Structures are given as structure tokens and as C-alpha cells.
């Protein structure tokens, strides 16, 4: 007997486990896409966003995935060689609706801002600027961070600090070390430690505040909106050169930025939609009330190259 799935085309999507695990945004989007396109979406999961890039390099572009989903904006340059370009007409038709730009071959899917989340039961006085934050005595050994070598938010912290302090970075990193309790491998593990009560602050996303407010009906956790600004983290998707079914992969890309998929991604992945048309569909009130920072930090192209990132990580390694 042949299963009904055997006759359907399969789309293999390389993404990180947080995006496409059980009850996730990816799983919900997959179900919807499979229904509408009569196909099978097969997720190939890696640990996190950075591991997507490593997986592409490890398989040397000979893997069986058709599409990557969830790569953050700091690693697009490195992943470019493995991706298929979008036709200008396609770019024009898709980007018309989006709040974020298409970067080369990469289509934005969702975004949020990186910041510290504070446990207000532990930290009463919340600093308003990055400088105050690094000098605050009540924050000694209160921070949980992620390793920039294995975590994309971790790299985001380095880029944020570089953007704010420029040449002064090493000195500020030394101050940051004083405030740090521990550095973990990835966001999920460190956020778990934080919510267990291990520390007063964790490096995360502004949308984490919305999560607690909506899901737990709690105002205990607050995001800091630093006066100097916050770094925006955008997650992207792209069709791979090695894709066996490029038409289906392109169809999935377009689907990801459609309002129904954007609603699922926003509500289940706790990120903000890049398609403003999805906003009326979103039922999670806390996400819609999410504040935008007054200033968005800019990262120079030089710092986003392999060499630029390596220099930042080296500076961090010297201090930590």
C-alpha cells in the first residue's frame, strides 16, 4: 500500500529546533502550507540559527535541504554563496508589502529587538542607559549572557556594545564581565536559568516581555529600552542552490510572508511580523502593544564580515 504522502512533492527545510519543534510556529505554518499546496514539508532541525550556517558549510552545498529558515541578519554574508537569487520581479512583488528589506537572496520573516529582560522582583532600580547599566552596583553578578560563538543573540550583544561604545569596547566589556553571573551556550538554556530565578537579568528579546504578559499574565519581567538604542534582529529565509524543488521552495518563501503565516510566526515564535497586513489578524494583545525603541542601533557592514565578527569575538574572549 502506498501512503498518500508518497505521491506528494517534499520540501526540505533546514531550520533551528526552536522554530520548528512541537507546538511551534514552524509546525503550524507547515500544516497550513501542506494543506494549501498538497505537499510534504520536512523540517531538518539544528540547534540554533548559527548552526544553520555551519550545517551548510559542513555539507559543502551538497546537502538535501531546499530552503533555510531562521538565519539571522548577522550571518547573511557568509551564507550568500549557498543561496539562490530571487528574480527582480519576485523581489518587487514580495517586498511591496514588507516593513523589512529583502537582503540579496534573503527574505525577512520576522524581527525583534535585543535587550536585557529584568526580573523586577530581584532588580528594583532599572538603568536607562547602557553606561549606567554597566556601572550599576546593584547589577553585580546579575546578568546571564550567551556565548557569541554559539548564539546569535550573544553575537547581537557584542554588536550592540560595539555600536554604542565603538573604540571604547574593550573597557566596557571588562565592566560587563563584572556584572555577569554566567555565559551559556544558547538563548533557550540561559533563559531557562533566568526564569528559574538564577539571576536578575538575561540577554533576550523585547518580545520576551510580551510573552510573560500574555501567557503568564505577569508584569514581573520587563524589557529595558536603553536611551542609546537597541539592535534589531531580523530572521531570514532563502532558497538554496542545491534545492531539488525550487518552485515549491519559492512558494514556501512567499507563503512565509503572507498574513496567515505571519500571524502564526508572531504568535508562536514571539517575534514581530514583517508584513504589517498580518497585524489585524494577531490576537495576542501584548505583542501588538509591544513598544518600538526610540533609536535603532546601526551595525557597520565591516563588523558583519567574517573578519569583523572574528575581531569582536577575539576582543570578548580576551576579557571573558
Amino acid at each position, binding site marked *: 500500500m502506498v501512503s498518500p504522502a508518497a505521491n506528494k512533492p517534499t520540501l526540505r527545510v533546514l531550520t*533551528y*529546533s*526552536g522554530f520548528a*519543534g*512541537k*507546538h*511551534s510556529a514552524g509546525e503550524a505554518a507547515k500544516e497550513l502550507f501542506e494543506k494549501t499546496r498538497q505537499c510534504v514539508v520536512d523540517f*531538518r*532541525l*539544528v*540547534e*540554533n540559527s*548559527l*548552526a544553520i*550556517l*555551519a550545517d551548510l*558549510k*559542513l*555539507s*559543502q552545498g*551538497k546537502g538535501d535541504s531546499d530552503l533555510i529558515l531562521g538565519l539571522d541578519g548577522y550571518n547573511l554574508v557568509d551564507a550568500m554563496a549557498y543561496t539562490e537569487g530571487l528574480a527582480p520581479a519576485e523581489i518587487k512583488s514580495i517586498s511591496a508589502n514588507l516593513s523589512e528589506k529583502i537582503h540579496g537572496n534573503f527574505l525577512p520573516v520576522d524581527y525583534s529587538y535585543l535587550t536585557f529582560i529584568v526580573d523586577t522582583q530581584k532588580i528594583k532600580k532599572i538603568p536607562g542607559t547602557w553606561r549606567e547599566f554597566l556601572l550599576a552596583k546593584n547589577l553585580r*553578578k546579575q546578568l546571564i549572557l550567551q*556565548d557569541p*560563538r*554559539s548564539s546569535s543573540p550573544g553575537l547581537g550583544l557584542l554588536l550592540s556594545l560595539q555600536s554604542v561604545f565603538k573604540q571604547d569596547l574593550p573597557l566596557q566589556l571588562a565592566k560587563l564581565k563584572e556584572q*555577569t*553571573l*554566567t*555565559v*551559556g*551556550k*544558547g538563548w*533557550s*538554556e540561559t*533563559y*531557562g*536559568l533566568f526564569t*528559574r*530565578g*538564577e*539571576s536578575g537579568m538575561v540577554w533576550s528579546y523585547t518580545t520576551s516581555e510580551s510573552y510573560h504578559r500574555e501567557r503568564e499574565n505577569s508584569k514581573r519581567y520587563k524589557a529595558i529600552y536603553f536611551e542609546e538604542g537597541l539592535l534589531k534582529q531580523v530572521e531570514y529565509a532563502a532558497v538554496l542552490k542545491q534545492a531539488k524543488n525550487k518552485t515549491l521552495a519559492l512558494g514556501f518563501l512567499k507563503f512565509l510572508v503572507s498574513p496567515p503565516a505571519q500571524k502564526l510566526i508572531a504568535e508562536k515564535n514571539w517575534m514581530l511580523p514583517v508584513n504589517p497586513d498580518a497585524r489585524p489578524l494577531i490576537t495576542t494583545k501584548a505583542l501588538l502593544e509591544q513598544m518600538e525603541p526610540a533609536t535603532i542601533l546601526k551595525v557597520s557592514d565591516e563588523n558583519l564580515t567574517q573578519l569583523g565578527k572574528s575581531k569582536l569575538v*577575539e576582543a*570578548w*574572549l*580576551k576579557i*571573558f
Partner: protein
Amino acid sequence: MISILCLLLLSAFFSFPIFVISQKLFLDPNHSHFDFKFLLQPDFKSALCFTFLQSILSGFLSVLFGFILALYLFDSNKSRIVNLLGSVFSIPSIVAGFGVVLLFGRSGWLGQIFPHASVYGLTGVLVANLFFAIPFSTAVFLQSFSGLPLSVLRVKQILNLSDKVFLKSVLLPYCKQSCLLIFFQTVLITAQNFTLAIILGGGPSSSTIETLIYQNIFFSYDLQKALTFALFQSLIFGGVGFLVFKSLPLGSNLQNTQPKNFLMTPINRIFPILILTFLGLIVAAIFVEGISSLVSEFRSFPFADFLLALRYSFLFAFFGSFICHIVVYVAAFCGVLLQIYGHQKFSKGFLSLLFVLATSSPVVSSLGYLLWLQNKIPIWKLVAIPFVQAVGLFAFILPFHFVVIKQTVEQNFKLISIMNISIFDQIKSVYIPAFKHSLKQGFLLGIIMVVGQFTVTAILAKPQVETVTGLIYRLMGQYQHTHAAIAAMLFLLIVCIVVSTFKVTQNA
């Protein structure tokens, strides 16, 4: 001649991953070449220092605490505790790491009492290392004590020696070799520590070489760096492995009747009870967290995923232990036969070579197979898993069986050659009855030792299949910590049941 050929083949099998790595580094034109400068970089130097600092300290402390605990358990004949201690081997280190946080973290049971003490860094890694190393060293010391002749123990009563004098002049000299063995084996196990350094290290200054290798493969994808570190690590660990081999009591007789209820005046009982409390509290923390999570998340827990992962964990462990036993028996038989024929140097040389190669670390072996099977059918990577596990187990299973094999072969060799019995009959009538018991125990011990292993399956099993450790790791990565706690508790419970049912460590 056949023995030498067999040992040569085994050496080739053991050195294969190192060969693949060296070939990629030195001969493959598609890859950059070996670069010494990586070994001078600050992150490597700091990882090298931390790797040895934590492992040497763990070695010292586990010898000390393991000796005290073994003395207490030997004296009071608490076989159930000995048995339960064995289940600690199988706890995935990721679970143990979180057990330590649950207990000593700022929000932990004991951590709340000392809010300013930090469990992250050397302290946390040491505590977690000891959680594994103390039961291990206790088991080895207990085995060593079981070899003490009854007359030696009676000396204490006859001469009315004080505890201190008896310890200093009788027990310690007797256990000197075991102390060295435990020290080097603990150094080896904890130097290969990977997950604990990630969870409890607290930052790059408290990272191990193994973590750096993993990082460079799966996140930065700097293969040149990863391979250079892997090759360097296999050289260092091979050196430590050689020291372990030198400390092995391969020629001594440990099979004397085990004396029980032998009333040595107990040394202070408070200390061993404290050690047991420390071990028990971590296990209790894992159970309590798991049970409380199960109560609240029973309906949403992915039981199907857990059962599938459990099946794979035991399947890989079963075949890993099986292959390891074939390798150990072939190596030991050939080694003993060479000794009988007067080639002692050859025998020792080959066995030490195998031992050194086997201790080159799971990450190095896995990496070698990963590179070799990179563009081949994915199923081959799964097939490679038990082989890598078998190589990793060799250093622990060989000492377990060697003495029995040596004694049996030596005792029966002349008789068999005179009677001209066929190989089939030899196996059936001589070797199977002689090895039956130790084989069963060793086989189960092998399963227990690798069933909770992470590194090998993390490198070779993903993304096709998932073991329980992989599942726990993934659940934590998906911010499903309560589900991870349930999986950890259920896994620990199942292993405890297996260990108690088969009385693995008690008999071992």
C-alpha cells in the same frame, strides 16, 4: 602470528578516525593545512589550562572521597547502595549539570542558603565531575578491597592496630596502584568533559578543549581549527591513557573471595555519609523536579518521542557494548597468547597501543567518522555510532575482563593443547562456563556506561535519530525545560530499575 595479525587489525580499527583527521589536515588539498598558530590562541590556551585544572583536581578529590566511601561501604556491606551508585554512571551529564544547578544554583535548595556563592565556573564543574567520579572511584576501590586476602584484614585484630596505623601501613600501600589508576582514569573522563563545561563553566575561560572542538564544528564551522584541536587532544589524551595503562593491575589477582561484614573499626562514619548525602541530593533534586513537572505537564509530555529515543539509546548502547566485548576478548586473548609464547614485550606494547588509541576521546573518533561518511548514505553514520562507543568503552571494559581471561587461558592452555580439542569445543566446554558471569556483568556495565552518552550521538545521529540525551538537549533548546526534566527523571528511573534488576555494579 594470528594473534599479532588480530592485534594489528584492531590497532588499525582504533586509529582509523585519527588517520582520517590527519589525512584531512596534512594531505587533502581541499582543506587548509595543519596550523600550529591555533594552539597559541588565547581561547585554546585557556581551554587547555582549564581542562587539566578541573580534571586533575577531580582526580585527587575522587581518589580521596572514593576511598573513604568504599571503605565505609566495604565495611558495612551495603550492597544496595553500591548498586544504586552504579546507576549514576548512566546519568547524562546534561542532566547531572542541571541537577547541580537545582541544588547549588542561586535558586537551588542549598544555593538559597548561600546566595553569594556562585556555582558557575570551576566550582560547579568540579561538583558535577565529582558526582560522576566518586561512584566510579568507589566501585574501583571496592573491587580492589575485594582482592585483599582475609589474613591481611585479620592482622588488624591480631595486632590490635589502630585505624590510623592500619590505614597507613596496610591499606594504603595495598591500594596504591588502584589510587593511581583511579586518578588517571578520572583525569581522562573529566578532561573529556563537554556538556558540564557548557552548562556550568560560566564562560570561555572555563571551557574545555572538547567544547572548543564542538564549537568549531557546529557553530563557527572552522574545520581546520577543529581538526587541529582534535589531533592535539588525541595526543594529550593518548599520553594520559598510557599512564592509565601503566597503572592497571593487569597481572594481579583480584578474584579472591570477597570478605563481607568484616569488622574493621569504622573510621569516622560522618564523612562517608556526607558524601552519600551529596550524591543522593543531586539525584533527589532531579527526581523532585521531574515528578513535579510530570504532575503539571503530564498531558503535553511527548511520551512517543521519549519511548522512541529510549529505544535508540538502548539499541546503540547494546551494540556498542557488544562490539566492545568482541574487541576486548580478541585483544585480551591475543595478548595472553603472546605472553604464553614468551612475547611479553609485544603483548604489552600492543595492548598499551590499543589503550592509548581508545582514550583519544569520543569527539575525535566521532569527528573522524563524520568526515569519512560526510557524503555517504546517512544510515552509515548511525552504523558507526556503536563502533565509536565500543572504542570509548575499551579502556574501561578491558581491565574488567582481563584478569579472568588471563587466568582462564593460562590454566587451560596446556591441557587443551595436550588433549587436542577443537576450537568449538574449547569455547563450549571451557571458555563459556568460565566467562559467563563476568561477560554478563561486563556487558551490562558497558550498556550502563554509554546509554546516557551525548557527544557521539550528537555528532553522528543528528538529524536522523534522537537518543534520550539528544531529546533532553533538544527540549531544553526549545525552551521546554519542564519536559526535559520529566525525560531526565524517567530515564534515570528506568536505568535505576535496570541496574537494580541485574545488580550490575554489585557483582562487578
